[in-house]
């Protein structure tokens, strides 16, 4: 049997009391902070997961932000292209009207007037601006892409009738598709979202084999000229050209629509991911309030019991019972 000496009782009692108090303090801090651990070393496995989840959450909110921005640009592009479409329809109607044989020269001049208003409208659409961005600015969205100088239309300084030299590079948004670059440092298509809709592609550049301008603004210019001079000999080919341009724009519209719906799909998925990650974070990092308080109370009882016991343990010795 072990001898239990007075010093042993004192030391052990004090050290136990101290560790009780330490536990009590620890549990109080946890309950107050609402955390299941206060330092990563208390639960490295959980902390490791928690750091990962936190990064996920911050990425998700970043992607949500990027997807939101991309989606709002897509909406603006869609609006602009729809407007473009309806303007073309109106142009087409007016041209059809003006072609009919019973229109006088004056009437045709009026049509030319109407068409030149539409032409200006086209120019406005081409320089459509949402917030601080020109949606058809291509890779340079901060400056107006088109400008008109003495009747010649320029796209970022290049005459739209020239066949080459247009900057049709992309602007990529990272929306969580796993951004990758090629060995040469170029971004791999499909790993980021391209929000660039170069006006050169939408409105057309260069001339076709028949010498007709691919650009709708310039084509309408030709039509206006035809009506002004009352020379409708080439109008048929103009109208055909307008139709093919309109078709091209419809394709663009579908393209934008697809992109928009992809973005809204992503928005939903990201919201789901965010919910899951937040839930996970709560599970890992947060402590159940009821559990925290029960733990604290249990420990408090243990501490009080230890205090009460010390009173009994340390007070008496054989001397108290000697005569």
């Amino acid at each position, binding site marked *: 049997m*072990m*001898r*239990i*000496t*007075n*010093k*042993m009782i004192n*030391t*052990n009692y004090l*050290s136990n009391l101290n560790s009780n108090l330490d536990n009590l303090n620890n549990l109080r801090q946890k309950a107050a*902070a609402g*955390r299941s*651990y*206060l*330092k*990563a*070393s*208390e*639960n*490295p496995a959980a*902390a*490791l997961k*928690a*750091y*990962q989840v936190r*990064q996920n959450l*911050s990425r998700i909110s*970043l992607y949500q*932000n*990027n997807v939101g*921005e991309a989606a709002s640009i897509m909406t603006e592009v869609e609006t602009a292209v729809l407007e473009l479409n309806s303007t073309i329809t109106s142009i087409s109607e007016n041209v059809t009207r003006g072609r009919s044989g019973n229109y006088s020269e004056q009437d045709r001049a009026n049509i030319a007037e109407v068409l030149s208003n539409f032409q200006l409208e086209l120019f406005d659409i081409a320089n459509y601006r949402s917030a*601080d961005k020109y949606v058809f600015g291509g*890779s*340079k*969205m*901060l400056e107006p892409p088109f400008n008109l100088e003495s009747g010649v239309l320029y796209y970022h300084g290049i005459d739209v009738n020239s066949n080459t030299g247009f900057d049709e*590079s*992309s*602007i*990529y*948004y*990272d929306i969580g598709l796993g*951004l*990758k*670059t090629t060995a040469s*440092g*170029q*971004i791999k298509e499909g790993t*980021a979202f391209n929000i*660039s809709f170069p006006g050169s592609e939408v409105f057309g550049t260069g001339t076709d084999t028949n010498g007709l301008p691919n650009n709708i603004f310039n084509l309408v210019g030709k039509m206006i000229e035809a009506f002004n001079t009352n020379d409708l000999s080439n109008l048929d080919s103009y109208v055909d050209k307008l139709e093919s341009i309109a078709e091209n724009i419809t394709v663009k519209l579908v393209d934008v629509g697809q992109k928009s719906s992809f973005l809204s799909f992503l928005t939903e998925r990201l919201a789901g991911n965010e919910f899951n990650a937040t839930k996970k974070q709560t599970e890992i990092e947060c402590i159940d309030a009821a559990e925290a308080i029960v733990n604290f109370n249990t420990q408090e009882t243990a501490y009080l019991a230890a205090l009460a016991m010390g009173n009994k343990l340390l007070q008496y*010795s*054989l*001397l108290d019972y*000697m005569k």
Partner: protein
Amino acid sequence: MGSSFTGLRIAQSALAASQICLDVTGQNIANVNTKDYTRQSAELNAVNYNNSVSKFAQPPATNKGQGVTVAQIAQIRDKLLDVKVRNCHSNYNTTSVILSGLSDIENVFDETDNSGLNAILGDFYSQLQQLSNNAGNTGYASMTRSAAQKVCQVFNQYASQLSQIRDEQMASLEIAVEDINTVISKLNEVNTQIKDQSVRGSISNELLDDRNSYLDTLSKYMNITVTAQNDGTVKVSSTGNADVLDSTFSISQSGDQVVIQRTDTGGTLADFLPDEGTVAGCLHILNGAGTSAAAGESSFTGLLYYNRALDNFAAAFAGTFNKINTLDPAAPANLFTGTTANNISISEQWYADANYIVVADTGTNDNVIKMINAMEDEVDETIYPGITGNFEGFAKTLMDTIAIDTGYYKDINDMNKAILTSAANQRESIMGVLVDEETVNLISYQKAYQAAARLMTVMDETLDVLINRMGVVGR
């Protein structure tokens, strides 16, 4: 036939012995709370009949004892338990110093309820994204710049916190070494006194207590082996058979490593690396280079590891972004200057002009995308050794490593503490004073004293009969 006065002699020896026993009990009670006091007990021996005159004679059958004598005042102490307690002391102090060092480092890296390197890198990443979405906008460029500045500041802050921890560890190592030298000189002094007393015949128990107390203190600083010598002194040796009492210890620096040196009385200098104890713990924390350890360096994951990792990290971070920002290798356009965590900062050019960061190479925002990509991609270990994963990943790795190590040492330290407590209790159980026991002794020695006094009276009365009343018949 014994002498007539034998009884008186026996009674007198009993009185004297009880007196001594009472005094020893008094000493024990007086020292019930004295630190490192060892319980004493008077060893009583019965005195036997020994008559050298009757060497060749047949001893009488009525041969009886001659009373009691106090052989020695012994210390009740178990040497094996001393060894055990001192080993436990060394082990516990190793882990407790390591734990406190690691906890300090953990406080630097831990981001459980505050934001540090990982969060700031995440911020920088978000700002790059914003810049990429708003290419050409100076406002976003300058926000990116301030995020980068914060990253640099966090590197600087971590580096300065680590160097502060290093200073603290060095200070505690210096104090330990100073203390060791003091304890050694005290031990040598006690050894000399004990040797003197030993020559004169008896060694005082209190002096032995002193020596044990010093040895206990020394065992906190290093692992020791105590060997008793014939002249009553002890020899203390540590790792590598180093004769501790023959040495003076000092601290010196060799490259990145802190070294403890030992000078013996002959003046010879040698490196000293104890296996356990405060000194070993401090050296682990200070010198531990972890995975970056070169030959001859400690592979413990300590301060040196984190220092180097942070420096590599800062260099890789600065290098990677400088490289992307430089379109023409002939004309470097550096975003960051500095190659260590301590001196990394954003370059003067960038500081002067937020748009110094190259957003576009061939496209609109393709260069920023490359930077974003560089945050996502694994760092090329062939260019920047020691960095695993991407930047944020590596920051996490550092946090994980320190958290896991700290957690591990917390457990080990708790275990060592429990073992130490149990060993110390075992020792205390043998050498400690128990008041109840001393009270019982007090009563029994008092009774013995009273009985011896009564014996004296009985002898007195017996002799009175013999001398005064014998042969007086009919007088």
